């Protein structure tokens, strides 16, 4: 049943018949089906306002779908019996605006949920935090406040904060869109490394370079519908749909 069905890797995310309507009239997402298996990197692209962020936000229920089913790591999210907080702890999310907690230092940002949700001790949580900060390349910023960091550094802290929870899936919602151009690479590098380590990732982005380098599958969404899915090189070089072609004509040099 899954795209990578049979004896392949286990299914991690499954969206079936997903629709989201705002104010009863705005159809942001229309009947989307998408399966993501363990270790897979799926990049979602599409024009702005196409509903790609909404699809992503439905995966951890920051947006509640109007119709359809969302399954993450075996949990049916729209089942009232599912503890959504429990599932969210397993699903890291990185936002366009970083959303670091401005009243907490970097290390406090990273230890907060570890201690409250994972029940780790302060020492243990700080150890994990320093390890993740080293991984994203800024261990020396542990005691800084978000305000004192550049955009790229803030986003890397946000990634470290999510990774410290040992998530099974990472969601990225246009992680480089709010960054100055010279800081895009440092964030993409961290994401590429994460992808190469086998993290399951769903990434909404406009960075086609990242899609080419890291994506197992590229999903093109337009007007709330999945128009085309496939390996990135195929979709880029030989799009089968007119809408896909029109989109790439506009953005690729």
């Amino acid at each position: 049943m899954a795209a990578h069905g049979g004896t392949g890797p286990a299914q991690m995310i499954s969206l079936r018949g997903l629709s989201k309507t705002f104010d009863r009239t705005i159809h942001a997402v229309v009947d989307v089906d998408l399966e993501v298996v363990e270790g897979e990197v799926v990049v979602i692209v599409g024009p702005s306002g196409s509903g790609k962020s909404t699809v992503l936000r439905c995966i951890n229920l920051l947006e509640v779908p109007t119709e359809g089913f969302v399954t993450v790591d075996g949990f049916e999210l729209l089942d009232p019996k599912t503890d959504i907080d429990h599932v969210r702890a397993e699903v890291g999310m990185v936002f366009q605006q970083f959303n670091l907690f401005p009243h907490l230092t970097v290390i406090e940002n990273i230890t907060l949920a570890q201690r409250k949700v994972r029940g780790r001790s302060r020492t243990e949580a700080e150890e994990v935090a320093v390890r993740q900060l080293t991984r994203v390349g800024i261990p020396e910023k542990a005691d800084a406040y978000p305000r004192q960091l550049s955009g790229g550094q803030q986003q890397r802290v946000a990634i470290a904060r999510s990774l410290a929870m040992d998530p099974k899936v990472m969601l990225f919602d246009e992680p480089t869109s709010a960054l100055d151009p010279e800081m895009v690479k440092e964030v993409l590098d961290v994401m590429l490394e994460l992808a190469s380590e086998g993290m399951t990732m769903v990434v909404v982005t406009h960075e086609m370079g990242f899609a080419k380098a890291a994506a197992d599958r590229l999903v093109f969404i337009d007007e709330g519908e999945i128009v085309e899915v496939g390996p990135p090189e195929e979709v880029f070089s030989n799009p089968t749909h007119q809408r896909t072609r029109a989109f790439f004509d506009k953005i690729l040099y």
Partner: protein
Amino acid sequence: MGGEKIKEPRGLRPGGASRVRDEKPWWDTFPWWGLFIALVLAWMAVQIITQDDYALAWERIIPGLRLTIEATIKAFAIALVLGLTAGMGQLSRNVVVRNVARTYVEFIRGIPMLPLIFTVALIVVPETSDYINARLDAWFGFTYEPSFQMRATVTLALIYGAYMAEIFRGGIQSIPPGQSEAGRSLGLTRRQTMRSVVLPQAMRAIIPPLGNDFIAILKDTSLLSVLGVLEITQRGRQFSASTFKFREGYFVVSFIYLCLTLGLSILLGVLERRMTRDRKGER
């Protein structure tokens, strides 16, 4: 040449006067109003010390200070709890909670303070306490009769609870939704997100207006005089009415309030400055 000069920042012309033109002289920025008020207060103090009539008024009125301060602190404390509850209640997901909170806030804010004090102290409190006392008497064999001071304090708390609810609600809503989304996406519960992420940030927007409300409550305790509570204003009224020394009586009353409110606002200013200095790293 003329064109070039226009682009030069004022006061920084090379070779010109070295004094920056935009800098204002000291007498322009000096807080004259503070000096003036300080002088008035000093003059008032001298009157009280040197003149017998003023000294007598002072002696009669100053015992009310304790009551005024007590009522202020009690009313503020209760209002704080009411305000936080009603403020968060208005943001609740529960339709009943949300509407109860909203009803309370709109009701109170729509009625002037004086009629509200009479209503609560003379109607609401007696009728509820009659109801409760009937049960208390039947089950435990005793009754409780709230004093007018208590009734008035509770009324003040009810009123300011509604005003504070708006302060809390506004403070919480001023935090961008991305903050709670980040908290929730990490697996924090609704409550944990509110406590550890949203409220600490909202406090910065909440504390200064709460301080102003504290001063406002202090001033509004003067309304308790209409219920005969012997705080500063009521003592001033009694002194003036019995001696016909209106000037001395209200003069002393005003002097005491001014000292309290000015002292408090200076204290608040220091507190606010310290808050912004300690947290320079943020935002």
